[in-house]
């Protein structure tokens, strides 16, 4: 490496954008700004000047103050101790920061993301021997990070060479070396339990793999109607008050992923606190362990510096890819990608770049696409299968889905959970609108549902959607000419749709029983409502009045079944469906007798 000048001076301060004089500095390089040594990143070069975006407030910074480059791009630390932590948008540990500087975030503080004092019990990989040639990303050993997650220690993906030494099993801090490696050019590298990786460079893998396993979230409208696969990309757009946060938190709580990374990007502080305070108390329904043991939070709340919002998503994604490379299924929730896009807009505006739509820069669409492309299922360097599922919340201004961020996102993702203000106002939660939402994965996951749950899954799902579409059509007629204009069969269709809405689609996140539905329970409830509809339709055809069927006590019980029986009580749910069949058969018999007598 040639001798390079690492020091320069500040020329101009314009909010979070600072112009510096530092010839030779590279794009994307990290810099420390001013006497306070604020964290920044070079985003553009112009003659002998460089433009820096600063991740902290620049108040009090003056022209003429010194600048120093760190010689590397913005990177994160990857190693044991990430899980259960909360970081800011540039991976500073917020708990440690709180202990150091109190209630408010002070500026210019640098703290390592991972605890340096904590000891981990390292087990070297048994297949490794000194003298072996190691490939990039190869597994060196493991530590038990939480009771549930075995953390694989990986060789950095940009390193390879001959293993000179590997430490025996024992207690190691992150600062103690666990081995040495000689790379092809002869340099000797020490190995540690952690390594760093630049956040804007996707971590490499052996190859992409296709995903066909559904991500189960325990939310009926999501899993049954608009499924997402592990390794898929989804978006949750919705105006404020439509329940975006609750949907995201429910996915974070109940999805059958190994690791959940929740990136609060430009959102409310109190929402993150809610997660921080409740997750340690909640149980993961799959492992029975505490939810916090598989959760990692990145918090850049709306009042924290704007440009760190832009970085926070990449910080989250890099950590997600790191666990993927260990063979885990990771779900990353980005709440909200609109705030991320606004950070792009703010920076581009301050740079005087030409705005295209609503003030957003022309590169919005390509940046969004590149970000979502980091999701996917891969075969890792160690030959394991791992995945990153990326779910982005979108906050369209005024709830208008034609605005640039929503519109571009829609072109990229495969699963779209559109939230509706009308449903939310009527307190129909989750307010996922079955007309505006879509999933490209239905055929893919049908195989899984048919094998694991029921061969009728796809047919039942389609039947329910047809009924809901009919409901919309008929409701329009009712609104024009009143309910009297409908035939009994049509009125029964409305009743059927109502059953689907109340008995299946609406799900109460606050109800301890209803909050999570296993795939089995989801199907049984759907089947129950459709059984009522099918059997009833046959009777109506025979002339039984709608009123008589609608008020049957067993239907009221069916409606409450979702909150009465939990996911383990399949037998009870099936019993209700049988009871429904019996009850309808009885009515049929009675009606036949009555008709006979009438004749």
């Amino acid at each position: 490496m040639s001798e390079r000048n690492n020091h320069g001076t500040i020329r101009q301060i314009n909010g979070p954008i600072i112009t510096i004089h530092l010839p030779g500095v590279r794009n994307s390089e990290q810099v420390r700004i001013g006497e306070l040594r604020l964290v920044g990143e070079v985003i553009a070069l112009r003659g002998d000047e460089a433009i820096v975006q600063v991740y902290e407030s620049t108040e009090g910074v003056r022209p003429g103050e010194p600048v120093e480059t760190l010689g590397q791009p913005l990177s994160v630390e990857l190693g044991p101790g990430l899980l259960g932590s909360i970081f800011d948008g540039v991976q500073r540990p917020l708990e440690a920061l709180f202990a150091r500087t109190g209630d408010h975030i002070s500026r210019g503080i640098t703290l390592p993301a991972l605890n340096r004092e904590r000891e981990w019990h390292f087990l070297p990989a048994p297949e490794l021997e000194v003298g072996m040639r190691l490939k990039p990303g190869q597994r060196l050993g493991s530590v038990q990070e939480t009771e549930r997650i075995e953390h694989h220690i990986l060789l950095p993906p940009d390193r390879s060479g001959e293993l000179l030494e590997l430490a025996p099993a024992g207690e190691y801090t992150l600062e103690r070396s666990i081995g040495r490696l000689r790379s092809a050019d002869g340099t000797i590298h020490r190995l540690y339990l952690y390594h760093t990786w630049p956040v804007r460079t996707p971590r490499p893998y052996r190859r992409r793999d296709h995903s066909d396993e559904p991500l189960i979230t325990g939310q009926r409208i999501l899993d049954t109607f608009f499924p997402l696969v592990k390794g898929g990309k989804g978006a949750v757009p919705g105006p404020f008050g439509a329940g975006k946060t609750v949907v995201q938190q429910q996915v974070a709580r109940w999805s059958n992923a190994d690791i959940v990374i929740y990136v609060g990007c430009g959102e409310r502080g109190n929402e993150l606190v809610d997660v921080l305070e409740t997750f340690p108390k909640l149980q993961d329904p799959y492992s029975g362990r505490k939810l916090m043991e598989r959760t990692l939070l990145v918090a850049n709340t709306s009042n924290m510096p704007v440009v760190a919002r832009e970085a926070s998503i990449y910080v989250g994604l890099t950590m997600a890819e790191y666990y993927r490379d260990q063979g885990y299924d990771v779900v990353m929730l980005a709440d909200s990608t609109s705030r991320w896009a606004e950070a792009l807009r703010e920076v581009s505006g301050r740079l005087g770049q030409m705005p295209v739509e609503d003030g957003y820069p022309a590169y919005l669409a390509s940046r969004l696409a590149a970000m979502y492309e980091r999701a996917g299922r891969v075969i890792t360097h160690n030959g394991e299968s791992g995945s990153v599922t990326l779910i982005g919340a979108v906050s369209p201004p005024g709830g208008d889905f034609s605005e640039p961020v929503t519109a571009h996102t829609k072109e990229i993702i495969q699963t779209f959970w559109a939230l509706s203000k009308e449903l939310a106002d009527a307190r129909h939660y989750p307010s996922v609108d079955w007309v505006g939402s879509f999933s490209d994965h239905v055929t893919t996951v049908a195989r899984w549902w048919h094998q694991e749950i029921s061969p009728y899954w796809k047919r039942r799902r389609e039947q329910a959607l047809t009924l809901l579409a009919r409901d919309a059509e008929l409701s329009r007629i009712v609104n024009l000419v009143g309910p009297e204009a409908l035939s009994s069969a049509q009125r029964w269709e409305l009743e059927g749709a109502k059953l689907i809405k109340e008995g299946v689609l609406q799900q109460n996140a606050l109800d301890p029983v209803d909050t999570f539905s296993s795939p089995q329970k989801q199907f049984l409830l759907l089947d129950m409502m459709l059984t009522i509809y099918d059997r009833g339709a046959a009777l109506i055809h025979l002339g039984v009045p709608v009123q008589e069927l609608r008020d049957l006590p067993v239907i009221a019980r069916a409606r409450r079944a979702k909150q009465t029986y939990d996911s383990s009580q399949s037998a009870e749910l099936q019993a209700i469906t049988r009871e429904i069949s019996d009850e309808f058969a009885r009515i049929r018999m009675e009606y036949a007798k009555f008709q006979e007598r009438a004749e």
Partner: protein
Amino acid sequence: MSAKEYRTTTAARGGLLTVSDAPQIAFGDRVLIRDHRGHRRNGQVIRSAADEVLIQVFEGTDDLDLENTWVRFLDQPMEIALSPELLGRIFNGLGEPRDGRPPILSTLHRPISGSAINPAARTYPREFIQTGISTIDGLNSLVRGQKLPIFTASGLPHNRLAAQIVRQAKLVDQESSFSIVFAAMGVSYSDAQFFQEAFSSSGVLGNVVMYLNQADDPPVERLALPRSALTAAEYLAFDLDRHVLVVLTDMTNYAEALREVSTAKGDVPSRKGYPGYLYSDLAEIYERSGRIRDRHGSITMVPVVSMPSDDITHPIPDLTGYITEGQIVLSRELHNQGIYPPVHISPSLSRLMKDGIGKDDTREDHPRVASQLYALYAKAQETRNLASIIGAEELSEQDRRYLEFADQFDRQFVAQEEDEDRSIIETLNLAWELLSMFPNAELTRVSETDLAKYHRSGD
């Protein structure tokens, strides 16, 4: 401290002043400006380069000339003085007295820009505040540390509602212990007068700090005002352990002042000419509310936000709704029917309600009663729409019951007197009176136990 004055102003327009050849000036610094009459103005550095500095002048740039304007950089951020003496006083947006009394003397000064609360330092707000207003307490409960705006429009009684909340807010079983920070931006003389009288007639004036910028005061000062007010609120809450209720009115005037300055600065506009950073700027203000671990005090915020042309999707209410923890929406339709407070419950919401109500906080049936009322009201609204098309005579008996419910709900539950302070138990009992119009079978959101205990009809 630099005593040097610069006379090198090169431009003055739209509240912004440019000074050349003033090197090494810190971004965000406070500036004193002396105009040709010798009058003093205040400013703040909003862009700083080696050869040119851009200053935002809080008193505006009217009547400035470029020859006889002196600028002094104070080498300190915008600050206000803090002491317990704040209570009972009235200031302008920069923290200067407006009540004719001497300025606050204190060694404690803090920058008004504040700094972000570490999310890890927060605790989740969960203590129920009783406002005595049924639509808020019963259906959109406010908790200590929450930010819950009132979305309103011109001609609606938001001021009366805000004043009622200030008068009545207390914790259940406790006398009012709130200190009030009242921040008024661009309000009319009569509105300012209304609040002052409301505070003095209810005897809380000694517990109120007012920051006042009237409609005819310089708009740029509105940018500093909520920050000064919140710096005072933070001091009262986290230094003096008080529970503080902050009323900000009207945030729409604030956002308009921001648009004025950003346009003059040449920022790229996004929606309706507002700058792209309107969201972040509003968040810097709203997110200063909350609770902090190991601190006794709290900041609860009730901003008043006017919806221009009654449009809830206008950028100001829209972005506010994305930051705050819910909203109370006032309706012109209810107001025209003579219903006070005209709270439209359908679009109203409190996100923090779930943890502040129920068995240990209010009453065990509260969450389910709220959900039930919402469900019935939504159904009743549908029925109302239907009735307006096909006529009420055509409705089934069941549907007519919904219509009757909606009317009773508006007249008994929503409507109340301006001095009527209903306890949460009274509110819930009133709710059950309304629910008792329906048979058990139709009340699917309340539990069997609730029905047995509170349902009053014969069946």
